[in-house]
């Protein structure tokens, strides 16, 4: 690459080689994608949400496609943090990118236990706290919709964590910036937004909700304007970095998030459609910056506010 554009982004004391991460729940434990993509090209990736014990997830049907999007209610099926540490992480030891562990608990004590276990893992760069899953009965968005809960939980995790903490926010609230402020006050190092938007599809044959969980989280290109708007709003209210996520399927949308104020972005549902899409998006960002005469990606972060 002849271009001299600087794509590196700093979050606390972590340096990302570029602003492109892949989103939790769409990238497995990373290993699954090695056949399709050189993980070293990524700024980093976020693991499937990990819980203290293995979770079976919701009953099927769990997904349904919608126009330019999809609704899912997986219910955080995962192998549990111990199996992740002993079976998956060793396979990732030669990967030269940042691995961010997404963690989920139904109580504060579970989040603390997860944080303590992951503290000891050198190749985990940061933790992303899932307070926004719309598809589980306990925890999840029940935490994330209440600023007091977000404050208490984030503070408890910060107290024990040796790694930077990213709080992942739900869009299913009146004022997402208010929740982001609570996370910031509690010491969060960054926030990521948005998680999926709650929705429902009804099967007119059976006359019942299509998903066994009834509601699900809407993701995909259809939702990106919501995410961009929320990043824009949050950027005006907080000082910590924002990670933009929601419906990014090409470099143009990724750039919109950066311009709205995101320091980094995450690619989610688009990974399902094209497993190596993140590579294209990184190159697209580089090309845009080069053509527009920007020296560094940091020059466009929040530029839409000027």
């Amino acid at each position, binding site marked *: 690459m002849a271009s001299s554009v600087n794509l590196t982004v700093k979050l606390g004391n972590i340096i990302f080689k570029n602003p492109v991460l892949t989103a939790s*729940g*769409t*990238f*497995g434990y990373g290993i*699954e*994608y090695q*056949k*399709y993509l050189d993980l070293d090209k990524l700024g980093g990736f976020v693991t*499937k949400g990990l819980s203290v014990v293995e979770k*079976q*997830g919701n*009953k*099927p*049907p*769990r*997904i*349904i*496609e919608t*126009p*330019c*999007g*999809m609704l*899912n209610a*997986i219910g955080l*099926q995962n192998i549990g943090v111990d199996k992740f540490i002993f079976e998956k992480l060793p396979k990732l030891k030669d990967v030269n990118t940042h691995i961010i562990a997404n963690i989920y608990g139904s109580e504060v004590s579970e989040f603390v236990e997860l944080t303590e276990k992951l503290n000891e893992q050198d190749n985990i760069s940061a933790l992303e706290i899932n307070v926004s899953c719309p598809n589980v009965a306990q925890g999840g968005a029940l935490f994330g919709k209440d600023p007091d809960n977000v404050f208490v939980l984030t503070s408890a995790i910060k107290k024990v964590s040796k790694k930077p903490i990213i709080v992942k926010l739900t869009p299913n609230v009146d004022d997402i910036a208010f929740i982001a402020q609570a996370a910031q006050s509690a010491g969060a190092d960054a926030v990521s937004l948005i998680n999926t938007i709650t929705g429902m599809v009804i099967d007119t044959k059976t006359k019942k909700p299509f998903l066994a969980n009834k509601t699900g989280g809407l993701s*995909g*290109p259809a939702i990106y304007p919501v995410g961009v708007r929320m990043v824009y709003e949050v950027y005006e209210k907080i000082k910590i970095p924002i990670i933009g996520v929601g419906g990014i*399927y090409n470099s143009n949308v990724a750039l919109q998030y950066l311009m709205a104020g995101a320091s980094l972005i995450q690619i989610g*549902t688009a*990974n*399902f*459609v*094209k*497993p190596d899409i993140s590579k294209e998006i990184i190159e697209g960002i580089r090309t845009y910056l080069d053509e527009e005469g920007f020296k560094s990606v940091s020059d466009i972060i929040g530029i839409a506010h000027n």
Partner: protein
Amino acid sequence: MELKILENIEIAQNTFSLKIDNPNLFDALAGQFFMVRINGFNYPLLRRPFSIADFNENYIEIIYRVVGEGTKILTKKKAGEFIDILGPLGNGFSDIGTGKKIFLVGGGIGVAPLIYLKNVIESQYRLPYKAYFGFNFKEEIYVDFGEIATMDGSVGFNGNVVDLVEKELDENSIVFACGPTLMLKRLAYVCYDKNCKMQVSLESRMACGIGVCLGCVVETQDGYKKVCDNGPVFDYREIVWQAL
């Protein structure tokens, strides 16, 4: 991978054969599938999983039924255009040469992967087999071998294919099956009764096809398993049929 379409024609009512140029870069087992991107846009968003109806050095054949907007758009694709496929994915049928009497039992569009399996049995294993296929009515039939059952009695046996094959099965049989869930469920109960072996290829909605979205799971004796990469072919004794 972007491959050239050789042919995309209607071979039975609402049923199309899509033949794609085989680049001869990979092998594919009977029972495996491809995730096919309908077009390069965001609608329809997700790839569609399609089983392999034939695979040889000249072409890859997919037989699909028009069930929704995605497959309707796919019918508009013409020879000479390119199509983006991911795969082959999943496990495929196994233990074909076990010395048991081989039965292929399919229903509707589920007959498609059994056509490729039949070609593999004939060319690689050279074993005898019997095939039984069920359709709703004459115009749906797209296969030129095996015994046919139709629900309206317009061709062959009048009724369900499970009723047609039932009396043939015993403990020396191995069944390879694919079709509607209810058909497979009935067939599973018959196989339990007759104590025969059976591998079923299951269908499920999937977003990724590569084991990460966890959208396609089926309930098994060991908890949820992914149809895309633990399957799509399962031993019928693994599946919790009551949940389907």
